[in-house]
């Protein structure tokens, strides 16, 4: 040990008079020397002082110098202590590899899970909006009189732009659509969006090559030009810089590439479109105020608040409602941050996952703290010796905490790997369709920021796991310890801490488990919900007819009739039909008026979702016919226009429920009267967790469609696809079949299910880890309890207690512990399940049955975990105990 080391150990600090004493010694010695050489005392003193110079000033300067020196030494000592502590900690961990491995595993898994969720949440927050000043971007919807959101009409949009004044620096429209790219016979479906000329200006994005769209290019009929996403440019053109000016065939027509968008650009509300085209709607579609098809994004002007922008737009919309009551009465506007449109759907899941993973981290810390506590107690003798020979309590605590910090750092290093795997698992669980709406999750992996976050977690977990055990351990009574046997006070104190840690873990685990159970019940109640159709044995696939060859409606109708007839010849197919949009996908609505009923108020016109059907759609889907008849091939353009309606439509708008035979008119086609010929059962339209809306069905033979989704009920399942594709190829080369999926998959991949199944899977895994840790914690406490009370048990046994009484003795304490944990956990569970909020369906956050069952289950599991070591109490041999004394 260096001299400084000894001084520190002996706690010798320089006294304030050190400098004075040194100088006085110098002057005194000099004076004595001079006197010895024959000077008088006065002369000697004067000479010594003269030789020295300004004594006071020197003393001041020397004191400053010493202060600097001591501060620096203290720092250096601190650093060398740290190195020493780290070395001791490292050796200590190596000496007990089992403990070290459990610590690293626990902290590594927990901090890795945190790192993974952190990476995902961070991407959702920052990478989701790759535009300058993303907080100023807003989505603008119209709101129907019934409160539902709708797209804007073109005239409304134009009026917003001209009348909203200086609140917005720009408003732009977009219209997502799938297009078919390539020559006939070799087309591929591509996600695309048609946008107004100012769209990229509003987002603040300039193409990395070429140019953006210019004013006027988005007029009626559009302009045959396109912008490519960076990804599509790389994939399809190998990043060829000469791509500008090349011609693509889009939906059968030539289209010139004018630019490439920058790398990293995406626009999730348009489904991560790869091809961007100017808006091309015809002039007549742009004059109808009742035609709502345009999605609108706007940027708040500098210096204006979101509230000002909202108020401004609401005023404009109010004026429009007054000026055009026919179309706009009752319609308002809703302005929401663009961020809500991008991550609004996944926000509840992200919040739930963040909370869950934080709970697991706390559980892991508590668990690690328990492990450290037993280790510290096992070293009580060593620590007492160190304190007895002069180490301060702070010094010992520091050394113990260094050990836990080292474990935290090790955990974080493992955590980086776990986070990498975790992100892959999280993002890998999303299918392509989901990724199109969450493009910022594509190719996601932890980066430097995640590593920095894990470094922070290392400190938090290190302190969290090590501080309390170190404080308790360092309080161990030196005398008792050195005396050798039992130390009642320290044992009691550490026992309380250990019990508290385990009870806390149980409480958190119960919260997590309750959340999982509630989400599982939500998912089950969604899956067992009556969808209104039988998805089993139904396979689906979408067929689109695009290009000039298919423009005539009779060609479209002939094609689908022939196709359905041929599908029926495929072996195994019992019935075949087609529909414009499958159940569970949204669709356009129309307002109508029932003949013979009083003229409805404009704001409360009957409204229903429109679907076109072909063939034996209802039969194939298993939707029951409740009244009247279904469409036949005789219902075509030469006969009376007919419609079918859903049960809820019949019930709501046809008093008495007798709809068949009644007539109605749509406001969109005022000249045609439609006769209701049949009523079918209700089916879901949008999300499963939404209400069943009224639907009306048209026959494609009366209102043609160029895209329909086939639905075939077949015993051969998806193995009919090759036959279907072969049929399509022989009928019309170049017609694409896409979105092929069994109906059961369509249901299980629908947003309402995915939004719950996906986080459930993750939270379930976290809950499983939590249970494991909690059970291990209970087991550890109880076995420790048995070991500590061996003497007591032995004496009781010698005094005649039987085996069951002894086990009961131990078990009682275990039960007390579990009970405390579960009781406080119940409260936490209520809080946590409330945070799940909108993710729950068909079950309330505090559902007593679920919470009760979960509590019972966890209680039983942990009691078994304490029964196991408690049995050992029954096997204690009193003779052996007495011999040990």
């Amino acid at each position, binding site marked *: 040990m260096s001299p400084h080391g000894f001084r520190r150990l002996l706690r010798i600090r320089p006294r304030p008079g050190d400098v004075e*004493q040194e100088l006085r*010694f*110098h002057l005194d010695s000099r004076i004595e*020397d001079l006197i010895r050489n024959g000077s008088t005392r006065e002369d000697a003193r004067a000479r010594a002082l003269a030789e*020295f*110079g*300004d004594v006071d*000033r020197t003393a001041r300067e020397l004191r400053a110098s*010493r202060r600097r020196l001591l501060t620096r030494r203290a720092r250096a000592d601190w650093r060398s202590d740290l190195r020493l502590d780290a070395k001791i900690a490292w050796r200590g961990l190596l000496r007990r590899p089992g403990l070290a491995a459990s610590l690293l595993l626990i902290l590594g898994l927990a901090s890795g899970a945190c790192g993974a969720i952190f990476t995902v949440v961070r991407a959702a927050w920052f990478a989701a909006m790759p535009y300058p000043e993303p907080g100023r971007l807003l989505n603008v919807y119209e709101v129907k009189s019934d409160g539902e959101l709708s797209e804007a009409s073109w005239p409304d949009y134009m009026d917003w732009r001209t009348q909203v004044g200086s609140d917005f620096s720009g408003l732009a429209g977009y219209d997502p659509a799938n297009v078919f790219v390539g020559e006939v016979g070799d087309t591929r479906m591509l996600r695309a969006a048609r946008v107004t000329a100012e769209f990229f200006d509003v987002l603040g994005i300039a193409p990395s090559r070429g140019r953006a769209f210019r004013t006027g290019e988005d007029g009626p009929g559009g302009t045959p030009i396109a912008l490519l996403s960076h990804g599509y440019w790389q994939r399809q053109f190998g990043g060829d810089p000469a791509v500008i000016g090349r011609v693509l065939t889009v939906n059968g027509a030539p289209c010139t590439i004018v630019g490439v968008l920058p790398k990293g650009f995406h626009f999730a509300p348009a489904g991560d479109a790869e091809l961007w085209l100017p808006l091309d709607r015809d002039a007549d579609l742009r004059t109808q105020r009742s035609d709502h098809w345009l999605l609108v994004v706007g940027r708040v002007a500098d210096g204006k608040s979101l509230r000002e922008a909202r108020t401004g737009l609401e005023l404009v919309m109010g004026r429009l409602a007054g000026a055009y009551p026919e179309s706009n009465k009752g319609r308002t506007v809703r302005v929401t941050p663009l961020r809500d449109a991008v991550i609004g759907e996944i926000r509840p899941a992200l919040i739930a996952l963040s909370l869950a993973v934080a709970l697991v981290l706390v559980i892991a810390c508590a668990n690690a703290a328990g492990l450290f506590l037993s280790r510290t107690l096992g070293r009580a003798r060593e620590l007492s010796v160190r304190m007895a020979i002069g180490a301060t309590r702070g010094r010992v605590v520091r050394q113990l905490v260094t050990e836990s910090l080292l474990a935290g750092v090790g955990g974080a290093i493992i955590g980086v790997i776990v986070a990498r795997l975790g992100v892959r698992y999280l993002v890998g669980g999303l299918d392509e369709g989901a990724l199109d709406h969450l493009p910022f999750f594509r190719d996601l992996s932890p980066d430097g920021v995640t590593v920095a976050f894990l470094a922070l977690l290392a400190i938090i977990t290190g302190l969290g796991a090590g501080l309390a055990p170190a404080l308790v351990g360092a309080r161990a009574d030196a005398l008792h310890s050195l005396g050798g046997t039992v130390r009642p006070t320290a044992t009691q104190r550490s026992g309380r801490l250990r019990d508290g840690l385990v009870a806390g873990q149980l409480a958190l685990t119960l919260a997590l488990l309750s959340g999982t159970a509630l989400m599982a019940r939500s998912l089950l109640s969604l899956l067992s919900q009556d969808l209104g159709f039988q998805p089993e044995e139904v396979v689906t696939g979408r067929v689109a007819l695009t290009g000039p060859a298919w423009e005539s409606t009779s060609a479209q109708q002939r094609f689908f009739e022939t196709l359905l007839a041929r599908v029926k010849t495929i072996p195994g197919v019992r019935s075949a039909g087609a529909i414009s949009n499958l159940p569970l996908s949204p669709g356009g609505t129309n307002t109508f008026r029932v003949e013979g009923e009083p003229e409805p108020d404009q704001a409360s016109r009957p409204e229903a979702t429109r679907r076109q059907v072909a063939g034996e759609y209802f039969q194939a889907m298993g939707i029951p016919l409740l009244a009247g008849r279904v469409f036949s091939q005789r219902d075509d353009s030469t006969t009376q226009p007919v419609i079918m309606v859903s049960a809820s439509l019949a019930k709501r708008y046809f008093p008495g429920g007798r709809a068949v035979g009644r007539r109605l008119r749509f406001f969109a086609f005022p000249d045609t009267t439609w006769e209701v010929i049949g009523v079918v059962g209700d089916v879901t339209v949008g999300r499963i967790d939404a209400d069943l809306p009224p639907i009306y069905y048209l026959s494609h033979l009366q209102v043609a469609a160029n895209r329909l989704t086939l639905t075939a009920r077949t015993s051969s399942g998806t193995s009919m696809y090759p036959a279907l594709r072969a049929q399509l190829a022989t009928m019309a080369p170049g017609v694409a079949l896409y979105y092929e999926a069994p109906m059961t998959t369509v249901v299980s991949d629908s947003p309402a299910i995915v939004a719950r199944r996906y986080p459930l899977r993750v939270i379930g895994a976290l809950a499983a880890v939590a249970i494991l840790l909690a059970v291990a914690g209970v087991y550890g406490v109880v076995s420790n309890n048995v070991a500590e009370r061996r003497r007591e048990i032995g004496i009781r046994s010698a005094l005649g207690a039987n085996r069951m009484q002894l086990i009961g003795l131990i078990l009682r304490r275990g039960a007390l512990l579990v009970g405390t944990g579960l009781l406080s956990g119940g409260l936490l569970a209520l809080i946590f399940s409330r945070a799940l909020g909108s993710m729950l369906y068909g079950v309330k956050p505090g559902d007593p049955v679920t919470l009760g069952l979960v509590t019972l289950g966890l209680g039983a599991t942990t009691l078994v975990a304490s029964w196991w070591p408690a049995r050992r109490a029954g096997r204690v041999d009193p003779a052996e105990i007495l011999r040990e004394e």
Partner: protein
Amino acid sequence: MADLDLVQGTLDVLVLKALAWGPRHGYGIARWLRDTTDDTILVEDRALYLALHRLEERDLIEAEWGLSENNRKARYYSLTRAGKRELTQRQSSWTLYADAVFKVLRATRADA
């Protein structure tokens, strides 16, 4: 002989050298310097102590309290390992320097 102003840094070397044979207190160093140079170089005591503390701050010397010849508490300074290294280095560079200066001052001809 006249007082000589010490060239900057020279005092440090002299102090280090004074400690080359073992620990000394401040007064001992001052006396040794005076005796060794026959009072040629007059060091202000104040400057000596500032130099001692400066060298201590640089870890070239270290200090410890001890008892003096006349049984009084005195602060003894000794060279650290770094101080010994520094002394060797400065000694040789000083010798080179002094030789060079000497050669110039003893020069007898204007051209080389």
